């Protein structure tokens, strides 16, 4: 088909170039400033540097032990993700592969969570967690994050329902039990959908703000988004650290995204088409 899309499309594309360059520019701008002393950033934002320094990073990594907060976020992400994948694939398989009386009702039941985010039920959840003595413990955030399985269950049960019945039958005939069939045959087949689930869920969990804010009150348990706020709250005091913390917490993830961008975007699309 034609490669010329007309003047209007040309203008739109030009806008897109500007818009997209903005993301690159702002990242470069923060990177550049993260190597400058505070006085320079505040008084001479755009000007040429009076000197480069690694002090901002040193302060963050050595004095403020930033990696500990990074570790908190990683622990929450990995644990929640593992739980979500295990629990939601079991549940979806149960819903999709077997027929039973309340099947339709159970499906709708698991969809409810899509419309009601955990934060609205946070008061009872908080009371429950304080009874379990889990307030100010990473476990509370992990458990609550791992309970929102509506979207994963929806995506995975659609996938399992579409698998031909013969695979299941063949495995049973070969002597595999229900559990082995699931674990050795069905679950591996679902890996593209599991990947899509992981992508969608990871972004949410990594950036989640509300649950850690409620549950993680002491400094040592804070996650990356919460600790960033400490530096961005009062820019006159900590603008240098804010620059460095932005780079430290953004760049590794962006690099991962750019490397896997095709698969990630495909994964998100798959989630949408199935959703």
């Amino acid at each position: 088909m034609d490669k010329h899309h007309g003047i209007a499309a040309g203008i739109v594309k030009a806008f897109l170039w500007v818009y997209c360059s903005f993301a690159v520019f702002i990242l470069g701008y923060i990177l550049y400033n993260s190597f400058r002393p505070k006085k320079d950033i505040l008084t001479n934002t755009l000007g040429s540097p009076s000197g480069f320094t690694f002090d901002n990073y040193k302060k963050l990594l050595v004095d403020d032990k930033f990696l500990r907060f990074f570790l908190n976020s990683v622990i929450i992400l990995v644990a929640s993700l593992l739980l979500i994948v295990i629990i939601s694939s079991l549940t979806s398989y149960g819903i999709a592969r077997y027929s039973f009386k309340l099947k339709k009702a159970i499906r709708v039941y698991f969809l409810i969570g899509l419309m009601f985010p955990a934060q609205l039920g946070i008061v009872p959840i908080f009371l429950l967690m304080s009874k379990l003595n889990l307030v100010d413990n990473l476990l509370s955030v992990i458990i609550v994050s791992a309970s929102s399985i509506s979207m994963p269950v929806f995506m995975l049960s659609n996938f399992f329902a579409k698998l031909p019945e013969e695979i299941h039958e063949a495995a049973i005939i070969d002597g595999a039990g229900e559990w082995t069939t699931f674990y050795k045959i069905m679950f591996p087949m679902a890996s593209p959908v599991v990947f899509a689930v992981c992508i969608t869920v990871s972004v949410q969990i990594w950036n989640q703000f509300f649950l850690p804010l409620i549950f993680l009150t002491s400094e040592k348990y804070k996650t990356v988004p919460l600790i960033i706020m400490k530096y961005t709250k009062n820019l006159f005091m900590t603008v240098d650290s804010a620059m460095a913390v932005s780079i430290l917490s953004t760049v590794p993830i962006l690099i991962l995204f750019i490397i896997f961008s095709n698969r990630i975007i495909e994964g998100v699309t798959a989630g949408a088409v199935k959703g």
Partner: protein
Amino acid sequence: MIAFFKKRPYIFFLLPGFILYTIFVIYPIFAAINISFFEWNGISEKVFVGLGNYIELFTNPELMSQMTNALGHSFTLFVLTVLLQIPIQIIMAYMIYIKSKGKNFFQVAIFSPQFISTPIIVFIFTLLFDGNIGLFNRILELIGLGHLTRSWLGIPELGIYIVWIMITWAGIGVGMVYFIGAMKMISFDEIESAYLEGAGVWRRLYYIVLPQIKTTILNLVLAAYIFGMTIFDFSYILGGISGGINRNVDVMSLFFYRMAFGDQNPLGGRVNENSMGMGTTIAVVLFLMLFIVAIFQISLMYRKEEE
């Protein structure tokens, strides 16, 4: 007993998810409804007040004005998203779909802010629009419009629009990717025959593509509604627990948070003696507002499935 479970292996598959989901997603909804009938601060004795909290919420002028203000902002975000963000997402997706030059770069650059934490998004916009160190003011000075410089983030009327711009920049890529996915499902023949009949890019978008991505549009409109009612972090980070100057960036979820968990103490709050009661009351009002849309959405999902 064993025979019962042997006949029903699905129970083992369903059970772990069912238990966890029921305790931490479904039970809290009902528990919140229950608590909303009590006057309670989370520590002392609960006092049953029936619909008292609801009556107070809707008749107390201070609470009511805070709620209408927050609700107005939540709706503003929803309307802006539907009227501006979704059309932009469609156009962006379409430009990538028709294989414009640089489409890979577009896709990555538009999607990537999704991976940036909210506090950093807010920080980026502060770097741009701050009165003192803001780049926007520097640029105005450079091009000789120095008299226009001001502290953009300090103008109360702009607050909620700035929040919307931040939300859009951060999240626009997800919807765009959904649209690209939907567009890729359109049969190529249809597009090609329209092209051979002489329909230009925009006519093809309007007559062929738009009708076929209707469901995606509708889903994103519903998602925008849920999002508007539950968005919290942008307003909290930008305006703090009070919701900014004159509560200019306050939204429903922040109003709820302030009532339930306000103050330094997680069990404190403005309505201190009744923080849990009033907090859950607001949560229930929000539940109801989402419930109407939820019924609609679930029925839509089922219709799609039965097709």
